[in-house]
Structure formats: structure tokens, C-alpha cells
């Protein structure tokens, strides 16, 4: 009897314990399911973030190039040069107001006894109302040609920048001023503004047209301002555009008193085109400039220059270029190219005073070589250049360029 009672008690106790454990497990499962559901809801409602890293308000960009020039003639030295090292600083004050700048160092060493230069290539503030309307102010690039605004080495062919957009359009050409720019419907980009202009009293090298007279935002004489305008249509693989820049350059004689009251108006314009289809890339630029009052410029040069020269009065140049991407795989991209250029810088001759046209300012250049991108932003370059007029410039070039 005692045994039976004991067994009954034990079985009851076992049953109670088992039931309690079952209840506990069910409860735990219910709680777990509830927690899983809550987590699922959280995962679905919480932002998933972006694969792109967060963009800080202040960012850094850069580009640069290292070049090697091996001249055929002994008259020019074979040289390797850290041609330029550029760092850009950009800041976003808010969603619409931004700052953009580039600081450039040329030729590696900047000191009183060296060839190097340190300069601010751009420093401007942009207020974006929309894609179609931006206001900008500061030191910014003038939108003429293709190279002046897009001049990072991986974006152009050849170790050296082309001569049309160096000697006719003085790349990298920037002015202090204000402008309005934007992208209109249909892919048409406009850019208009008012800026500082050239100072013809500073002319000292006619081989580069008016390049030596551009002021680069350095205590720029601002008596005579200039205006510019550019239109560019871009679509898949296609760029068609042109621009004009005009303004007086006498600057009321600020740099040369003999130019007081002389307008010396400079008007420069260009048209350009680029077409990429499949592996083929075609590009062409025509640039033209006129500098008025060249007789008075000659008189001013004669009176003040230790080595007088005939003032440039007309500058024009053109090039056509073709490239073909023969090998493109993953990040590697190999493209041979050829470019034909013509430069014509006419000078105001004054035989009575010994001022004559420099024949080297009529030049034709053939460049052939290749760009080899080892990464879309890093390029190795090699080319040969032949100059029809000044054969001492014939050379073989090697270069490395990058941008980020």
C-alpha cells in the first residue's frame, strides 16, 4: 500500500514537472519568435546604409605627371621632370554652397634659385540653385577648348599637352570673376561671366601668343575687364562646343605707361568636337584670337623691353587627333593615337625698328604614341613628336600621369 502511494506520488510529481517544463519551453519559443519578429521589423525599417563610404564635408582630389623628354637635337637638354603635382581641396558648406580649389606645384622644387612654381590654379565658390543654374565666383578656369577645364593627364593623349591649347589657348587659363553656368535640358551646358582679362603691358614672349599677358589672379590689373561665354553639348560619346572671350588688355597703362588709353582688345574664340564610338576616339579643336592696336603695343615694347619683339596680333591653331583602343580588359586599356597640329601666331612687323615675324611661330607638329591606362585613373604614356619648322624640338617623350 505504501509502495503504491509512493509510486503515485512520484508519477504525479513527474507529471507536474514535465508539464511545467513544457509550458516553460512554449513560453520561451513564443518570446523568441516575438523577438525575431521585432528584429525583422527593425532590419526592414532601419536604413541599410550605402556601399559608398560617407563623404566628409571637406574632400581632397589630386592629379600629377612625371615626364621625360629626350630631344633629338643636342641644342636642347634631355630631361626628366616632375612636371606638376596638384592637390585639390573642396568643401561643402551645405547642400548648395560649395568651394573648389587646386594648388599646383611645378618642376618639383620651388625656391628663388629654381625653376619650380607654386600657384593657385583654382579657388572658387559655387552656389547651386539647380543643375540648370549655378553662380560661381573666385578664381576659375575659362571654358575655352577641351583641355583647359579637363586637363588631368589620364584624360588626354600625349605626354605633353597639345600645343594649340597651350600656345593659342593658354591652358591652364584662369581668371578672377563671377559667372553663371548650368546644364539645360537636352545636354546643353552654358557658362557665361565677367572676369579679369589680360594685361598686354606684361607681354614678353610672342611664341606663346598672349599667354605671357595672362594675370592668373596675381594682383591682376582690373581696369579692363573681360566677358566670356561658352556652349557645350555633350551626349553619349559626343562633345560639340565653342566659346568666346573678349576684353581690352591695355589696363590703362598699369604695366606699361605707354599703353594708357590704348584698348588693345583681345578676342579669342574656339570650336571643338570629340566623338567616341566603340574603340575609336576622334577629337578636333580650332582656336582663333585677335589682339588689336598692335602698332601701339610695338611702340610700348620698343620703349621698355631690353629684347624687343614684334607684338602678336593674330593667333590661330588647330589640331585633329585620332585614337583607337586596341586592348581593353578589366582596368587595362591600351590606345595608340596620332595628332596633327598647326600653329600660326602672326606678329605685327616693324622693319624700321627691327621687329620681325619669328618663323618658329608658324609650326606644324605631328605626334604619335600611345596611352596605356593601368587603371582608369593612372596612365603610362609614350610618344614621338616632329616639328616641321623648329626641328630642335623633335623628341621622344615618356610620362606617367594620375588623378583621383
Amino acid at each position, binding site marked *: 500500500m505504501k509502495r503504491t502511494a509512493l509510486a503515485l506520488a512520484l508519477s504525479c510529481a513527474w507529471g507536474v514537472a514535465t508539464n511545467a517544463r513544457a509550458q516553460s519551453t512554449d513560453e520561451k519559443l513564443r518570446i523568441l519568435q516575438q523577438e525575431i519578429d521585432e528584429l525583422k521589423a527593425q532590419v526592414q525599417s532601419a536604413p541599410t546604409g550605402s*556601399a559608398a563610404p560617407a563623404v566628409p564635408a571637406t574632400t581632397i582630389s589630386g592629379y600629377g605627371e612625371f615626364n621625360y623628354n629626350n630631344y633629338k637635337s643636342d641644342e636642347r637638354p634631355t630631361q626628366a621632370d616632375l612636371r606638376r603635382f596638384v592637390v585639390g581641396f573642396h568643401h561643402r558648406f551645405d547642400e548648395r554652397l560649395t568651394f573648389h580649389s587646386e594648388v599646383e606645384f611645378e618642376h618639383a622644387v620651388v625656391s628663388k634659385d629654381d625653376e619650380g612654381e607654386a600657384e593657385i590654379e583654382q579657388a572658387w565658390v559655387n552656389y*547651386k540653385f*539647380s543643375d540648370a543654374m549655378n553662380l560661381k565666383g573666385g578664381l576659375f578656369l575659362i571654358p575655352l577648348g577641351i583641355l583647359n577645364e579637363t586637363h588631368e593627364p589620364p584624360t588626354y593623349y600625349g605626354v605633353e599637352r597639345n600645343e594649340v591649347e597651350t600656345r593659342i589657348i593658354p591652358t591652364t587659363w584662369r581668371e578672377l570673376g563671377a559667372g553663371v553656368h548650368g546644364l539645360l535640358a537636352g545636354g546643353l*551646358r552654358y557658362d557665361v561671366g565677367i572676369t579679369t582679362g589680360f594685361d598686354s603691358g606684361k607681354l614678353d614672349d610672342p611664341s606663346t601668343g598672349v599667354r605671357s599677358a595672362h594675370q592668373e589672379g596675381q594682383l591682376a590689373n582690373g581696369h579692363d575687364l573681360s566677358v566670356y561665354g561658352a556652349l557645350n553639348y555633350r551626349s553619349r560619346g559626343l562633345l560639340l562646343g565653342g566659346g568666346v572671350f573678349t576684353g581690352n588688355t591695355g589696363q590703362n597703362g598699369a604695366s606699361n605707361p605707354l599703353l594708357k588709353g590704348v584698348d588693345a582688345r583681345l578676342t579669342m574664340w574656339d570650336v571643338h568636337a570629340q566623338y567616341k564610338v566603340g574603340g575609336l576616339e576622334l577629337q578636333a579643336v580650332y582656336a582663333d584670337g585677335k589682339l588689336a592696336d598692335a602698332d601701339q603695343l610695338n611702340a610700348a615694347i620698343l620703349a621698355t623691353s631690353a629684347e624687343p619683339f614684334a607684338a602678336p596680333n593674330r593667333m590661330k591653331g588647330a589640331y585633329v587627333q585620332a585614337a583607337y583602343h586596341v586592348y581593353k580588359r578589366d582596368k587595362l586599356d591600351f590606345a595608340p593615337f596620332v595628332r596633327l597640329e598647326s600653329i600660326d601666331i602672326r606678329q605685327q612687323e616693324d622693319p624700321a625698328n627691327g621687329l620681325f615675324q619669328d618663323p618658329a611661330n608658324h609650326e606644324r607638329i605631328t605626334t604619335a604614341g600611345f596611352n596605356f591606362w593601368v587603371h582608369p*585613373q593612372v596612365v603610362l604614356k609614350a610618344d614621338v613628336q616632329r616639328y616641321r619648322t623648329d626641328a630642335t624640338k623633335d623628341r621622344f617623350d615618356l610620362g606617367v600621369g594620375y588623378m583621383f
Partner: protein
Amino acid sequence: MRRSLFALVLGLCAAAQALGEVYQTPAAFVAEVLGTVPAPRVLWLTREVQAGAAAILDHPPANLRQRYWSDGAKSVWILEEIGKEELMTAGFVISQGRIDHVRMLAYRESRGQEVRDPSFLKQFAGAGLDKADRLDRGIDGISGATLSVHAMERMARLALYFERRSRE
């Protein structure tokens, strides 16, 4: 005359302001593509997926999971990447392992907005990935928008890669 000019400038500014830089919200894009905005799905970026994404982006992905929307036949992926200085946001619609179409939803750089051009974006339609996770076709670039074009190519590859991994 001056008042009219001032009013014109103000009007232009107001009109321009209204256009903004966000062309379409992700929700509106998803709704347009799928007819509704279904509950988002999530692709967890395991180490293996992260490694694949990093190889495409040239930097590790900053997120641990990627949200996407699907109706079973099509999936929508909203991705962001830096062009030169700023993020751009693009929506990719993928069907059967190929891009159906692409739209730029937001572009924040001060230049290079030409990547919104429909004729440029149209090139991505029909593109898939090859065995090395590259696009199986060439994309013609846009002069002056080199870095933004490269960013678009990376995002297109990433969308296709994510979509493939979401089916595994």
C-alpha cells in the same frame, strides 16, 4: 524696368531652386517600376559578398546589408557611389541577370550632370556580367565627366553582382 529685371531674376532663381538636385526619390522609383512599394528584402553582405563588392568598387563596401525590392520577376537596387567629390544615387532595375534600365536619382557634383543623359544611361540596358564580374559590353563615356562615368560603371556591376548573390 529694373523692377521687372529683378522680378525676372527672382523668378528664374525660384524656378531653378524648385528643380533641385534630387530628380526622383527611391520610393517613387520603386513604385514606378514595380507598381507599388513592396516590403524591402535584404541581402546580407557576408565576407565573401563583401570581397566581391570590394573588387568591383575598388574599396570595401561601407554597409553590412543591402536593401532591395522585388516582385519576383524584377528587382530594384538603389546604389550610391562617389564620382569626384560627391555621392550620386542611381536606381538599377534588373531582370534575369541583366539590367533592364537605369536612372540617375540624385547627382550632387557641381559638374558632370551629363551622366543623366538618357542616351548615356541607355547603354546599360541589357548589360550583364561576364565571368570576371565585368560588364559584358563597353560603355561610351562623356567628355568632362570621366570619374562620374567610371562610378556609374562600378554601380552597374555592383547591382548585377548583388542581384546574382541574392538569388543564390
